[in-house]
């Protein structure tokens, strides 16, 4: 049996790879997402009372209909939140850095493959009750194609 390796050896490993890429990617001026939100990029939801600004990320995948069962498509959703609403410019810069980090993201380690091929960016509208109107948010949805090593290794076993 061949053990899957690389960042697509598991969904957890892929998420950690994506998170570190997002936080540590440096733009041409050496700025990173971490400069704005620190380490506050969480999976699924932020802990209670997290300081603003922060981000949450979530990966949803499905087997591509009509394709090889080893191929998956997915969406990586990143939501960046600020409060008060004057933090909108900060999280807009943060969103730019996320886009830069993911623009050429390709992971082909360990016999798997993951890459980004699309992104949709939305500035969330100002909400009224029950929404806290002082929060501001930007939502990024990246489309990924993934041949995860934890699946492709099955055919090599």
């Amino acid at each position, binding site marked *: 049996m061949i053990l899957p390796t690389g960042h697509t050896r598991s969904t957890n490993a892929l998420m950690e790879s994506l998170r570190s890429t997002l936080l540590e990617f440096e733009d041409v001026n050496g700025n990173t997402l971490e400069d704005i939100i620190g380490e506050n990029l969480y999976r699924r*939801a*932020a802990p209670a009372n997290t300081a603003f600004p922060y981000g*949450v990320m979530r990966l949803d995948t499905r087997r591509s209909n009509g394709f090889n069962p080893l191929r998956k498509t997915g969406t990586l959703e990143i939501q960046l*939140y600020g*409060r008060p609403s004057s933090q909108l410019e900060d999280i807009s810069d943060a969103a730019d850095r996320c886009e830069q980090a993911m623009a050429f993201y390709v992971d082909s380690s360990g016999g798997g493959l993951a890459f980004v091929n699309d992104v949709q960016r939305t500035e*969330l509208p100002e909400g009224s*009750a*029950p*929404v*806290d109107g002082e929060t501001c948010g930007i939502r990024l949805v990246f489309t990924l194609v993934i041949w995860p090593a934890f699946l492709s290794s099955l055919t090599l076993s």
Partner: protein
Amino acid sequence: MRMFVDARSNKAAVLSAIQRGQVDGLTAMAYPVFNEVRRQLRHGYHSSLGNWGNFAIGNNVNHVTISPVTVNDDGASITVGTDLDYALFWEIGHHNIFTRHFERDEKWRPAYEATLDEARAAFARTFHAAFTGSSSFGIANDVAQSVSFGSGEGVDII
């Protein structure tokens, strides 16, 4: 001339049937999503505090709508949607002033994913009907009439 063979192009009828099949197919495709979203919204939203909130359920369900089909040069589209802001924020997440927590309870995306195959099948079934004559706009009869044999006097010999 007492007799002739008349052949006509049926392209216009075919294109017309495609367009009508497209409109009917998209409409049929929208209903599984529409029904499933409404079904899920009937339960209300589940908050991070663990309770099922009675967040104006009837209003939310009644604001799920299906748009008319829009046809343009790139094809056609139909939208199942709502005009309620709070429905959007519950779907994508928000900081709630009442619970004082981040709240999110998706209804739309799961409904869309759960009904995708059914919606595609509905489209295919309805679109296909346009070409088998089982619907009022079927082109089977048009095709049968596309080539006719007749006399110049208007007396059909076939």
